[in-house]
């Protein structure tokens, strides 16, 4: 406790010193009281991790790179940081009559920070680039519903026969049309994802220079980028959008270890950490008080099963899977291991969708309630555990998965009254773990996590459980589920589409295609200099709204 107060004092002193010096830079320090006012010229520092891939919109698939893209880019849609709802940003209008052909009008008056105008061509060129196999873009599959994708990105690895998507046509300076291969009513709502961002011509003409210092159309522009150590973003003064940055900029600093970032926050050298280390969760409230944020994010963790395995794929095993689900004491594990930074899951989506978006509390029902007796009975009825034991496979290199896997196993062992019912099976690296999944080498349940790409119920179901979908790691396949998903996608009435998706989710439940464990929260801590800090549904800080005093 003493340490905490001391650290606060240092942070306070640093804040005063910084505030005193930072006011010179074009800020309006009118200072009319309260925490609501900020110095719009002041720069804040935030922790960051080295992005795994080059910073290109269609090539960035992890949080650290995505964080930057969401600061320097604005797409056709933007997800509301509070509700997660997709709202028009650069889109003036997205029209469709059949949920398959869309006419998109881009708002006039938007430019990239280098002065170039954002037009329909900026989008079409960017999407064509992302879908083209020769560009190796890891998010290429985001364009798979657009007609012509199979020509620009042949799945069998053959030579591509087209460089552009035949389903995209520029019809005017600010209009273009999109033709999809199937009905996809919620397609417009996916367009807030970074992969769909527009790109300036300099991206195509001098790609190396662009990657070294990306140019976008968002509220911030890149001031300097030293790979592996720091990315400095500064407010773009001529930004035409409504959501102008409320601060002068953000310095993203690469930390090798989130514990060090936390220590730096305590010592007053850093303003914001967006990942409070597990080891500090016990002290964080005492250290930071109300400057600690712990809010739900669109992330769910589950246990998947290898349905390609004879034992696990056979009929009747759904009882065993349900039995295992009932043997897991989610409340106790989220309390003790995760210090309430996880919420026990009661469906297969996430609370950030909201009820209208498709989240349905308690959809899982009894199957997600801890009941040792019922668990034992269900497992016995289902023919017992294959081989008498389940091994939960996980990667041991990141994310401290060992702790919770051991706890889950412990819970299962207690419920089933069998010391050897469940053991953890660590795999050294994430890459090797993914390898074993891709090679279908899993022999029992394995850790699965899903971070949503966009806040839609479709994103929590289709990529994970649809036959042969991109993230259907367990290779689960169910005709009724597929049919319901197709129906939902073809449905133009959003409320109806959502309820059809929920019916599909019930199929997942009845078969226990995956055991839902818990929803993950985003956590962050910040210094006394900052106010109006919040996390969006993707657990990324809403940087442009942060005020620095």
């Amino acid at each position, binding site marked *: 406790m003493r340490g905490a107060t001391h650290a606060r004092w240092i942070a306070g002193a640093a804040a005063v010193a910084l505030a005193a010096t930072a006011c010179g830079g074009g800020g309006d320090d009118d200072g009319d009281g309260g925490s609501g006012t900020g110095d719009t010229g002041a720069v804040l520092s935030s922790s960051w991790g080295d992005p795994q891939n080059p910073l290109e919109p269609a090539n960035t698939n992890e949080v650290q790179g995505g964080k930057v893209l969401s600061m320097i880019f604005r797409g056709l849609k933007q997800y509301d940081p509070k509700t997660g709802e997709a709202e028009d940003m650069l889109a003036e209008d997205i029209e469709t009559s059949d949920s398959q052909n869309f006419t998109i009008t881009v708002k006039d008056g938007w430019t990239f920070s280098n002065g170039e105008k954002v037009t329909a061509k900026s989008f079409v060129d960017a999407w064509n680039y992302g879908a083209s196999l020769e560009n190796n873009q890891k998010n290429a599959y985001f364009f798979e519903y657009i007609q012509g994708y199979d020509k620009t990105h042949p799945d069998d690895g053959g030579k591509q026969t087209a460089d552009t998507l035949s389903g995209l046509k520029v019809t005017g300076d600010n209009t273009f049309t999109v033709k999809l291969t199937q009905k996809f009513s919620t397609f417009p709502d996916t367009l807030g994802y970074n992969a769909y961002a527009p790109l300036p011509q300099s991206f195509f003409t001098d790609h190396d220079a662009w990657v070294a210092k990306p140019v976008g159309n968002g509220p911030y522009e890149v001031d300097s980028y030293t790979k592996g150590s720091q990315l400095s973003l500064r407010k773009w003064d001529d930004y035409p959008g409504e959501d102008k940055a409320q601060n002068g900029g953000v310095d993203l600093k690469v930390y090798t*270890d989130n514990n060090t970032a936390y220590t730096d926050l305590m010592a007053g050298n850093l303003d914001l950490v967006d990942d409070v280390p597990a080891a500090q969760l016990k002290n964080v409230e005492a250290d930071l008080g109300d400057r600690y944020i712990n809010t739900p994010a669109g992330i769910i963790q589950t246990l998947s099963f290898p349905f390609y395995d004879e034992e696990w794929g056979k009929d009747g095993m759904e009882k065993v899977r349900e039995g295992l689900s009932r043997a897991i004491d989610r409340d106790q594990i989220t309390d003790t291991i995760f210090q309430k930074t996880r919420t026990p899951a009661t469906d297969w989506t996430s609370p950030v969708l909201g009820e209208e978006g498709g989240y349905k509390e308690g959809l899982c029902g009894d199957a997600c309630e801890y009941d040792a007796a019922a668990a034992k009975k269900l497992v016995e009825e289902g023919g017992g555990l294959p081989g008498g034991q389940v091994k939960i496979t996980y990667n041991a290199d990141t994310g401290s998965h060992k702790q919770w896997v051991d706890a889950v196993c412990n819970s299962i062992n207690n419920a089933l009254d069998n010391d050897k019912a469940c053991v953890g099976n660590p795999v050294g690296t994430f*890459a090797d773990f993914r390898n074993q*999944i891709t090679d279908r080498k899993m022999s029992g349940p394995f850790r699965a996590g*899903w*971070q949503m790409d966009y806040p839609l119920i479709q994103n929590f179901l289709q990529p994970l459980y649809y036959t042969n979908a*991109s993230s259907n790691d367990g290779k689960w396949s169910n005709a009724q589920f597929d049919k319901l998903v197709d129906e939902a996608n073809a449905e133009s009435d959003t409320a109806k589409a959502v309820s059809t998706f929920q019916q599909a989710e019930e199929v997942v439940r009845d078969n226990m295609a995956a055991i839902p464990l818990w929803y993950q929260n985003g956590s962050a801590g910040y210094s006394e200099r900052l106010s109006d800090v919040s996390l969006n549904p993707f657990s990324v800080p809403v940087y442009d709204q942060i005020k620095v005093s």
Partner: protein
Amino acid sequence: MGRYVVRRLLQMIPVFVGATLLIFLMVNVMGDPIAGLCGDRECDPATAAQLRHEFGLDKPVWQQYLTYMGNVFTGDFGTAFNGQEVTELMASAFPVTIRLTIVAILFEIVIGITLGVVTGLRRGRPVDTGALVVTLVVISVPTFVTGLLLQLLLGVEWGWIRPSVSSEAPFDELIVPGLVLASVSLAYVTRLTRTSIAENTRADYVRTAVAKGLPRHRVIRKHLLRNSLIPVVTFIGTDIGALMGGAIVTERIFNIHGVGYQLYQGILRQNTQTVVGFVTVLVLVFLAANLIVDLLYAVLDPRIRYA
């Protein structure tokens, strides 16, 4: 002397080839790195195949190794998965780690040897016993404990230093991390020097020097210390390589973006090019340090001659 150096340099070749081949095989045994590149989902097969082709991972390992070695001789260490040249990563990481190593070595030389001489000359006195106890403690406490403790006390509690090192990593910010990195070796250097000095104080040439009436500081520096330093120099020399490669823990604690950090990232992401490239350079550093140590022997003790 010249022939000796040439022979030593020739000996380096098999060591170099063997070490890189071993690392190459070890990283390759870990499986397909592309699988981890697409996050919690499978890369689509076409893109995965394309990436594999681009990084040359679709060829047999021996062919990958030959191509790699061929490129290394032209100074091309390949490309990391984030699109950066490995040489570029090296250019940013090695200067930082070299600075850190220099700080650590300076600590070893200045504090370690001084303390060793003082205790060696005062065997059995309180100073000696005290230093022995302190070094024992330092040796038995793991580096990460010392590191985190110093970081917490000096960085957070007292605010004397910044808990993390900035990306430029200038010398003054590296003092505490350097001390942490050096701590264990420092204790060994102290003990080695002490024993060596204690042994040599009774040597004939020291008695002669004293009998000649030479001033005490001259006896110690020119006669006693010079002869006692041979084992210490050997230790410090080999330690250079060990410090550079073994800085992973220290660099992680103090957020130093040096060799340890790059190696750690490379291993986590199973990035063959990064890991093999950095290890190759480390092997070279190790070999060079050993050579220099051997050459220093001749300087310290002219009786040791190389044919």
